[in-house]
């Protein structure tokens, strides 16, 4: 492994840990009432966000969902800015008016976190077609869930992307549930990658717990798009450790399912690989965890010191001139 790829993997590791601890902190702050409304956490899915986004290059963009904290942090959003947004403070990425479902940062290619299932897909296709028209070498990614593959925009977006050979990569974060519904109760097939076939472009099943696999598959799809060969659909098989949102206890999950998935924790898997390769010392994981915990705790504290915006402050967010 080259020093480069090694440091890249160490970055991946640190980022996954950051996301994990960030999300745990969000849950804590939500229970404490410092974050209100709702939260949709992504513990367990970190390899998908980090591995796929590592395949992006400057100028590339992506859209994600209300469960988008992983993508936002993987794209480099400052945890303090993210916490501030979740707390509704001025310092938040959207000035505090967006909240947990809308961590957005255009400067980092995060052009949308949508609270409407399926709405992000056509937007990503639009950005991709624009790049094509502008002669730019850029690509758009769209992250969405398994449940989103049942809504019309999924079909409409994939069809348009195919017709226009748009440089877009559709990434299904298949965590086996749409809210409280197991995939199979709302979807007649198991492998959602199959849903690429009617559009004539590749659909690939990927082990979403293995960041190496996620990164390799996404890189191939991204470079394919960049080369003008059109879209791809990637199905990342993964799992969300927590309930769907807020304080959902996820009673609908069969006994042992959570444990089975935790046995293949994406952070652990990469740690093992890095340790085996000698790129990570046996105590590094604990140290990194502690450092990150401190970083996250401080970020949350600083965020809480930011004031709530005034209505006047938010008026310019409505119309541009």
């Amino acid at each position: 492994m080259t020093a480069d790829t090694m440091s890249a993997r160490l970055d991946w590791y640190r980022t996954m840990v950051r996301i994990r601890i960030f999300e745990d902190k969000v849950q804590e702050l939500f229970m404490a009432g410092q974050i209100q409304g709702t939260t949709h956490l992504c513990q367990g899915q970190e390899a998908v966000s980090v591995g796929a986004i590592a395949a992006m290059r400057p100028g590339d963009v992506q859209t994600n969902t209300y469960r988008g904290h992983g993508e936002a942090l993987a794209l480099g959003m400052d945890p303090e800015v993210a916490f501030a947004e979740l707390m509704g403070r001025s310092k938040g990425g959207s000035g505090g008016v967006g909240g947990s479902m809308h961590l957005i940062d255009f400067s980092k290619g995060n052009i949308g976190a949508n609270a409407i299932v399926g709405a992000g897909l056509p937007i990503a296709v639009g950005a991709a077609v624009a790049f094509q028209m502008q002669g730019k070498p850029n690509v758009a990614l769209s992250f969405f869930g398994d449940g989103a593959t049942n809504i019309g925009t999924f079909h409409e977006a994939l069809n348009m992307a195919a017709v226009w050979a748009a440089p877009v990569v559709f990434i299904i974060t298949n965590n086996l549930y749409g809210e409280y519904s197991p995939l199979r109760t709302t979807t007649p097939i198991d492998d959602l990658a199959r849903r690429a076939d009617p559009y004539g472009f590749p659909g690939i099943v990927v082990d979403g717990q293995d960041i190496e696999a996620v990164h390799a598959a996404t890189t191939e799809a991204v470079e394919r798009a960049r080369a003008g060969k059109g879209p791809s659909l990637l199905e990342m098989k993964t799992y969300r450790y927590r309930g769907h949102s807020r304080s959902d206890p996820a009673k609908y999950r069969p006994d042992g399912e959570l444990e089975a998935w935790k046995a293949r924790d994406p952070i652990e898997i990469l740690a093992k690989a890095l340790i085996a390769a000698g790129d990570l010392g046996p105590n590094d994981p604990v140290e990194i965890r502690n450092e990150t915990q401190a970083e996250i705790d401080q970020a949350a504290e600083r965020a809480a010191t930011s004031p709530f915006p005034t209505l006047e402050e938010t008026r310019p967010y409505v119309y541009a001139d």
Partner: protein
Amino acid sequence: MSTLTDAAPAGASGAVTDLTYREAINAALDDAMAADSSVLLMGEDVAADGGVFKTNIGLVEKYGLARVRNTPICENGFIGVALGMSLVGMRPIVEIMFADFLPTAGDAIVNQLPKYRYMSGGQTAVPVTIRAVGGATGRFGTQHSATGESWFMHLPGLRVVTASSPGSAYALLRAAINDQNPTLFYEHKGLYARKGPVVRGVAAHIGAAAVLRAGSDVTIVATLLMVERALAAAEKLAADGIAAEVIDLRWLRPLDLPAVRASVEKTGRLVIVEEQVHAAGWGATIISELTIGGIRWASPPRRLSLPDDLPIPYTPTLEDEVLPSVEAIVATARVSVGR
């Protein structure tokens, strides 16, 4: 067809119980499904753990997964499915988790449900009820907080109704389910925990607003969450010797203009309290129709609405700030009566 009528209510008829708004909706669903095997409930996770807002507790155990049917995420599609069911003898109730998702089903709601009977020259009825959960105060942000109550009130062929209390939620939902026409039934997510008396087995009259408090100085018209704020304001106003008449509008289509007119003819004053932008809403419609009707305003009508040019913010402090408050209602009513 349900056997329920106002004249001869079915089930545990007439029994009065104290229920929460959530329980009242649950009771209306339960009683309607018990009374008529063609009634079913469908939507995202309606059968999972009592549904997202726990309004459906116990129903799947009683009526099974066919009649309490979880759907894939596809509002436009499953409202179309409900329409199709209604054409061949079923009476579907569709749950829309957040009213903000209604536009996702825009075609089904605008071009299909209200026009289907008409396009056929009256060959069919379309007994579909859509339960939409709307409203702010939940910190759900700009895509999950609209009441959406006036979005479809201009559509001939549709009925639109809003529930402000446990009692009205029960009676209005029974009326909606029992009706032969497509009806949009709006719930407010900020009201689920409210408790109040419910008369089992009796459906409300279609198109009838409710005068919740009589008064001769000023008329306050509200819907959904704003009704309890209007009542609280009336209480305070009474303490200062101002008698406010509070009307729960309930139906936006058909709109009960006669009830509002009768009240304003008495008071000469009107305060609209609406959890929506004023433009193109029921409040503007009422003021316009009364004015066209030549009503005598003792003082110009007033309104408390959401800001004209601002979406609903997530920011907790701002979400509270943009909603009409009890204090604002009191102050506005005082200006209206001039003391």
